[in-house]
């Protein structure tokens, strides 16, 4: 496929927008490329969070990032959710909408977690069909993130990177390449992260994620609660060398530090990408 990231803009380096930083951002107007907005936090509110978001979206480019689309679920697509998502995107002028390659509930019940998809032909066809439906509705490419996972199914017949690559091709969707998730999964499932990256269609990478993880008992947990680890920076560099020339976003969701810590991490991301280019 020949594509220049679907013609989406190069926004540079940004951070995930978190409530604790609202006032700092509006007061100090930090110099950074963009903010990623957790769409689910703004779908069922007409109040203060939306007021802050409107002000920030007036001043910075934004993209939406969600966890509630449940694109891999066998439940019907939630059209009400999609309608609200589209309305929010249009309200704040988000450059793109992303979510995860996962499912978050089934049988009308919600787990609010990113559950893994078996890497099978059946799942591939199912998810690709739903991605196309969402893209038709949004009238824009959907950008899908490789999630962190803690189990794999014996019934999988494809490798994760093969599955993602085939899914993006079949649905003509974008990739949000989370290099921390690649690292976490490579540790938890025992694969070579560089070989994984080499299997992905880098021309489809619309956005990159970096984040910190933590050591749990017997596995790595994708906690977004720490600085980015050295091996993850190395993977970011390798992804850029392989052709992932896309905006980079730092996620930090727990034990959130002051904004200057995030800016320092972004400086490391910039240096990393500069080395790789």
């Amino acid at each position, binding site marked *: 496929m020949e594509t220049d990231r679907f013609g989406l803009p190069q926004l540079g380096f940004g951070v995930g927008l978190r409530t604790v930083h609202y006032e700092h951002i509006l007061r100090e107007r930090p110099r950074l490329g963009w903010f990623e907005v957790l769409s*689910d*936090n703004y*779908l*069922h*509110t*007409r*109040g*203060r*969070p939306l*007021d*802050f978001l409107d002000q920030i979206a007036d001043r910075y480019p934004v993209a939406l990032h969600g966890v*509630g689309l*449940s694109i891999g*679920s*066998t439940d019907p697509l*939630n059209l009400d*959710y999609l309608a609200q998502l589209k309305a929010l995107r249009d309200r704040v002028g988000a450059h793109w909408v992303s979510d995860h390659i996962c*499912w*978050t*509930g*089934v*049988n009308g*019940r*919600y*787990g*609010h*977690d990113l*559950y893994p*998809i*078996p890497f*099978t032909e*059946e*799942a591939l066809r*199912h998810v690709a069909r739903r991605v196309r439906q969402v893209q038709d509705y949004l009238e824009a490419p959907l950008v899908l993130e490789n999630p962190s996972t*803690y*189990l*794999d*199914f*014996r*019934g*999988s017949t494809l490798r994760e990177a093969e599955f993602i690559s085939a899914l993006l091709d079949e649905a003509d969707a974008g990739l949000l390449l989370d290099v921390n998730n690649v690292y976490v999964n490579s*540790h*938890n*499932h*025992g694969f070579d992260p560089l070989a994984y990256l080499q299997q992905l269609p880098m021309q489809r990478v619309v956005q990159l994620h970096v984040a910190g993880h933590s050591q*749990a008992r*017997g*596995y790595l*947990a994708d906690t977004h609660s720490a600085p980015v680890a050295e091996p993850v920076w190395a993977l970011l560099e390798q992804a850029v060398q392989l052709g992932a020339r896309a905006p980079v976003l730092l996620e930090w969701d727990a034990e959130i530090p002051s904004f200057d810590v995030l800016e320092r991490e972004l400086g490391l991301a910039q240096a990393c990408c500069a080395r790789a280019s």
Partner: protein
Amino acid sequence: MSGPRKLGELQRWLFERVLDPAPADAETAAAVVVGGQLSAAERVEVYRQGYAARLVECLEDDYPALQHALGAAAFEAVCRDFIQAHPPPSPSLNHYGAPLARFLAARPEHWSQPAAELAQLEWALVEAIHAEEGERLDSVALGRLSPEDWSRARLLPSPALRLLRLRHAVADHYQAFREGSVASGRWPSPGESAIAVCRRGADIWRVRISPALAPLLACLISGTPLSSALERCTAGDETAGSAAIAPEELQRAFHDWVACGMFSGVRLE
């Protein structure tokens, strides 16, 4: 069954194990790849733990004063009971904690009533954060009403406004919690109280309402015309032992209520 095969079947199977303790059974071993330092059952357990942890975290965000009063361990135990009784009903967690006050009120512990009322206040604060602000009545517009208008004027409550009439001194307790001057394990003391919660811009207001003024505010919120509400609620009741409300107190109350954005406008009928 030698292990789930179809996508839907596999999802239902995993989700059941997320909701209930996952036995290290043959089904799990047949469905999940074993690798690294984790068994198949331990891998499922990561998701089972994550489910409860995420919902507890959501309730912690909404109910910090309740968590402080109960203590971290007891709060988590209550949350886990709540989660069992109230699985998330939608893809959004913004309103997940809404039924907690009612859930607490039905519990048998000695603290259930003050805990429920504290939860009512904290949920009103959450609702105020998420409510639309809309228009705001200003005191000039209110002052322009002629005495004749009062019989057909109804104040329009702001979408964020909540009036809580309680049997414990929740407002005092919550203020002390915010100031860090109440110990864990302490509960609001018994005693009738009322508090209004509303939003003006980014500010969330907690306004103590005197027992004498609470019926008046309740009448106004329910749409009673100004003059009827004033007649009904300010004259005092000798048999009930309540005194009439002084005009200066009324004036001050209206000024405060309007200033903190309790009303969005006035409608003449």
